[in-house]
């Protein structure tokens, strides 16, 4: 008799286990293959890929330096970092201020307003795409950091998740702080926010990932090389160098590195976030 492992649903025999492992490893290889191909092709001259021969002595980093020369990748990365970091920080501040009021203050119209916020989750972003483009143009923000950052700051989902979390923090903490003369602003900053790190971390990695990888909005509101983000720069790169696979793969590796680093550092938070937002549907 085999001991029942805590999360096992069936008592698997050795052959079944072997089969499962084989399937899972094969699946993993399929998932990883695109990354492997990307790295291999980026490390050899294009000729190596065309001939499918990758002699070790020809390994080179030249593709990376050439990629940086033909397109301003450094600038794209800088733009991405500025936009993703600023948008993430400001979005969490703005959402948490609103969530604080929704969760812990009383005011006229609170619950109806919150319902309206929730209802906006139903609206596909494509509907507001054209008006927002016009608003950005009217504000004189076309092709600027403001265009990339400001519309990303208002998140109904973020406000909702923060409000739900704030509601679980005991109200006595606020009461005690108020007795000591603390203002609401101080309670928000010194009591509620520090208590809410788990959900803030989740929102931060998600918002960072979403702004880093966003495609449609930057495509619409940027036009110059100095404002482009990595995904947009990469997609133009495909148009210009559609057969220079070594350069395209080097560019892809560069584009992926920052977000993969964030993933490996904050992996647990990512998974928690998916289950947190995923379980929101229950």
């Amino acid at each position, binding site marked *: 008799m085999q001991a029942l*492992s805590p*999360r*096992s*649903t*069936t008592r*698997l025999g050795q052959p079944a*286990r072997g089969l*499962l492992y084989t*399937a*899972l490893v094969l*699946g993993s290889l399929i*998932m*990883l293959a*695109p990354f492997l*191909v990307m790295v291999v*092709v980026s490390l050899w001259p294009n000729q190596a890929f065309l001939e*499918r021969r990758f002699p070790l002595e020809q390994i080179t980093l030249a593709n990376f330096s050439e990629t940086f020369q033909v397109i301003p990748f450094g600038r794209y990365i800088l733009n991405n970092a500025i936009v993703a970091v600023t948008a993430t920080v400001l979005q969490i501040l*703005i959402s948490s*201020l*609103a969530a604080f*009021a*929704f969760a812990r*203050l*009383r*005011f*006229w119209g*609170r619950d109806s*307003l919150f319902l309206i916020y929730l209802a906006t989750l139903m*609206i*596909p*972003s*494509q*509907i*507001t795409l*054209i008006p*927002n*483009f016009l*608003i950005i143009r009217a504000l004189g923000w076309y092709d600027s950091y403001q265009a990339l950052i*400001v519309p990303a*700051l*208002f998140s109904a989902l973020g406000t909702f998740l923060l409000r739900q979390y704030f509601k679980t923090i005991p109200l006595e903490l606020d009461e005690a702080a108020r007795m000591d003369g603390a203002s*609401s602003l101080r309670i928000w900053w010194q009591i509620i926010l520090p208590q809410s790190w788990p959900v803030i971390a989740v929102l931060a990695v998600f918002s960072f*990932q979403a702004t880093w*990888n966003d495609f*449609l909005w930057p495509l619409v509101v940027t036009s110059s090389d100095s404002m482009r983000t990595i995904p947009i720069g*990469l*997609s133009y790169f*495909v148009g210009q160098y559609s057969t220079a696979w070594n350069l395209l*793969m080097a*560019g*892809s590796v560069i584009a*992926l590195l920052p*977000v993969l680093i964030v993933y490996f550092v904050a*992996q647990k938070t990512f998974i928690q976030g*998916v*289950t947190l937002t*995923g*379980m929101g*549907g*229950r």
Partner: protein
Amino acid sequence: MEAMSRNPAHASLRLRRLFRWRPHQQWEAYLFILPSVLGFSVFVFAALIASLGISLTDWGLVGPKAFVGLDNYRSLLRDPVFALALGNTAFYVVTIVPLQLILGLLLALALNQGLRGRETFRMIYFLPVVTTLVAGAIVFRLLLGSNGPLADAVSAVGRLIGQPLSLPDLLGSTRYSKWAVVLLTLWKNTGFTLVVYLAALQGVPQELYDAAHVDGATSWQRLRHVTVPLISPTTFFLFILQTIGAFQLFAEPFVLTRGGPAQSSLSIVQHIYDSAFRFALMGKASAIAWFLFFFIFGFTLLQNYFQRRWVHYETE
């Protein structure tokens, strides 16, 4: 509303009670929500109304707007490219959503067997979810290209079994281009479904399996009658979420095939983008966006209605 106007004394009492309860909190609360409400007012609420207004005009971005009523909507119903984009998007929805749910569930079931290395597998399967889609799409252009590595592999298998096998040109044929988009999307998103399902499976109480086991249920019966009903709320949630996502596909076909060849992989959202930002048909593009909204909204309502037939909620 009605009750309040009929009973003014009651209404004013409520109002007074509201204000007596820390009156300073009233205006303070409005300050807290101010930045958020300002942003929503401009970028969501005003934008919504503007979008509706623009969809009723004939407007080329510069010059005056001409009010045309519902003409944009009417002419879309006769527009062959819109019909094509709609058909393609329907294809994406009916292929991607079931495949992703089934693959995600199978993988989650496999990972839920208490195997060693579960965290590592989960990490690998989730990796494509966080990657920049454009980078993934570029590798898929290389992998699926007519003389790419996948074509090599297929002909190698052909040589091995002594039969001439060749991979059809996935990216360059009007017949298969949509499948290329489906493959890319499955690679990118299945890990998400897997992680959500895995969390749901962990929530199924072990006692139920033990009880079913004692009653002599086979593992298939346990899957069919214990696991699947218990995780049906998750299936419902993923189903809605993935369907909305499939309706909104843009970057996948846009980077992989540019919507081609001959618009064979064009999605609705790319049709919006092309109409607005390539051909400056703002009214038409807005009308397509509203059609998209109605499809998504109608679909969600329909699913919500049918869910009682197959979604099992635990009653308190």
